[in-house]
């Protein structure tokens, strides 16, 4: 059998096809991708399906419980589907039958002003996701530019890496809090209450999280620069700009993609933490972190108000981390194909 025949037996394989095959074999990553896809689908298209206005105040229906509570009250499960509003259950603390506020109009209940929690959760997810993506993009661009320049131009390596070290030595969470506290009112005045705070939060998260990407990219660029194909590109007179865009950037795509996934997770957590500390978005412009923060005040009356947004944040971050894990394995040629 000649070599040509052996080659013919194989299926045609592309690089990204191999990556996809490897990625699919990582169960956690696949599950993460499904969950993340569902959440993304829910927050982008959800508000068109569940059309209740998240800001509408139905004050009569305030503090409605989650419909799930109906199924926990005992034997009246069928009544939950037909008429949940008339359900009473025995409260061991008060030692009497009490009526719980339940309604299919508000499956996740309402807050103390009668705003629908499901609609708020969907709307809040939109903002949280948008902040996560935008901040990740900003930090990715900053990190890649700094890393490529530091790795490619030797004269700028020292100063840029010292700058990276300096940023790594700054206490980030306190500084984020301080910056937001100090610049919040000015930006609100300039761009309006919602856009202003959005821009501020994306900006501060972006400029405080680019350092890891920059370090990884610099290391890879330094190694790539010594390779023959870069030498060949130089020797036929390719200018530096084109060497970077045509030869270097495509080869460092995999670490950039991995840090992109991890960046989304980190940005969502940071935004939620800021909102949780009361220094993020205002209460009438909900994000998951803000909903969680507002819910903690009413934690003993309705624990579900903190559980749903917390679960949303955790599931998103968990699924993104699993995707990152799978991507790292799939993009590593030493692991791929074994």
């Amino acid at each position: 059998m000649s070599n040509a025949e052996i080659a013919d037996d194989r299926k045609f394989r592309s690089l990204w096809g191999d990556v996809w095959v490897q990625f699919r074999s990582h169960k956690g990553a696949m599950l993460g991708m499904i969950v993340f896809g569902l959440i993304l689908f829910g927050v982008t298209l959800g508000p068109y399906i569940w059309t209740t206005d998240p800001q509408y105040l139905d004050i009569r229906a305030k503090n409605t419980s989650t419909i799930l509570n109906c199924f926990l009250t005992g034997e009246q499960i069928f009544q939950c589907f037909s008429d949940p509003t008339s359900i009473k259950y025995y409260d061991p603390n008060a030692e009497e039958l009490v009526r719980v506020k339940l309604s299919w109009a508000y499956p996740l209940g309402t807050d103390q002003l009668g705003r629908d929690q499901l609609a708020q959760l969907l709307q809040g997810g939109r903002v949280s996701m948008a902040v996560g993506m935008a901040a990740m993009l900003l930090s990715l661009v900053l990190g890649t530019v700094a890393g490529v320049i530091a790795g490619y131009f030797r004269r700028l390596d020292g100063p840029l890496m010292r700058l990276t070290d300096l940023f790594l030595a700054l206490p980030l969470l306190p500084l984020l809090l301080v910056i937001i506290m100090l610049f919040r009112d000015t930006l609100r005045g300039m761009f309006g209450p919602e856009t202003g705070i959005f821009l501020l939060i994306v900006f501060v998260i972006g400029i405080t999280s680019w350092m890891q990407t920059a370090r990884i990219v610099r290391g890879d660029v330094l190694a790539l620069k010594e390779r023959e194909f870069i030498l060949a590109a130089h020797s036929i007179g390719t200018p530096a700009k084109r060497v970077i865009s045509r030869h270097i950037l495509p080869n460092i795509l995999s670490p950039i993609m991995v840090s992109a996934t991890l960046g989304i997770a980190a940005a969502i957590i940071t935004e939620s933490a800021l909102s949780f500390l009361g220094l993020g978005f205002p209460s009438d412009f909900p994000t998951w972190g803000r909903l969680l923060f507002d819910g903690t005040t009413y934690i003993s009356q309705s624990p579900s108000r903190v559980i749903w947004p917390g679960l949303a944040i955790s599931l998103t971050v968990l699924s993104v981390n699993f995707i990152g894990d799978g991507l790292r394995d799939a993009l590593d040629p030493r692991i791929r194909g074994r």
Partner: protein
Amino acid sequence: MLNYTLRRLMFTIPTLLLISFIIFLILDLAPNDPTGNLPLTIPPEVREKIRQSLGLDAPMYIRYLLWSQQFFINEPLNLLNQWFGWCIGDCEGRLRVSSWATRSPVVDLIAERMPQTLWVVGMSYVVGILIAVPIGVISAYKQYSWFDQIGTFIAMIGFSVPTFFTGVLLIVIFSVWVPNDSFFWLPSIYDTTLEVVDWDSFMLQVRQMIMPVMVLGLFNAAQISRFMRASMLDNLSQDYVRTARAKGLKEKTVLLVHVLRNSMIPVVTVIALGIPQIFGGAIITEQIFKVNGLGQLLIIGIQGADIPLVQTLTFLFAVLIVLFNLIADVLYGLLDPRIRYE
């Protein structure tokens, strides 16, 4: 080694000065007015007097130099005076960095809050390490076993679920759902006025520490156990392990004496590097459980626009980061004889 440590120490001084200047610059460039929170009924000329009394009319570089003098020279001298009774220079009339809100010296405020933070944060780190090391060792020794799979999954959850959700979830379970008189009920608010005098108050202290310590501890354990596992795996496949087994050493000796000691080297540095981050993470945990530690002091300072307090605290966090980076590097050199800094 000593030479290297000294050189690094020398290098940290300009770094810290630069960081303190950056923090000062951020606070100073901010467009808001420190007297903005005062009542609107104060007439403008009085407001101007207040600004002058806070020293805000001086140019920026003078204020920075004054702060540096107060923080780097006066405060250490004052500490010497308080601790050892040594009096250098003017002991009574020395200017100290003072908070705008409480008018008391910032360093005293920090010293008041420090024990609570150290207790909760320190305990959580110790608990985290105690959980993480055995899990890491077993997961690596039985790689791909069910224990390893579950450990990996729980670690993934551990560092994906943010502390502000685990904390709130624990409160929902142990303070809201569990009845008040049950043995498993835990207080959701950390009471700092509690004094440990007898067994009952000691038990109360333990009960109120369980939740904050577990929240931070689990988060730390998730990260450290991953490092421990990776480091053990690196060492288990090395030649000296085969030699030790070939000599006929007991498996316990091989694992716990030969492999564990060598695997701890990178883990110790990771632990040292993680300590400053823990202080940052404690800001959130302290806010959830109402521990009146450093994190809460920072939040109060930020909400009240208390610039000297915020600046000093932020700078202290930066000092921690730089210091523990140095400690990690030196420890690495001390523990691993293959590494020699020149």
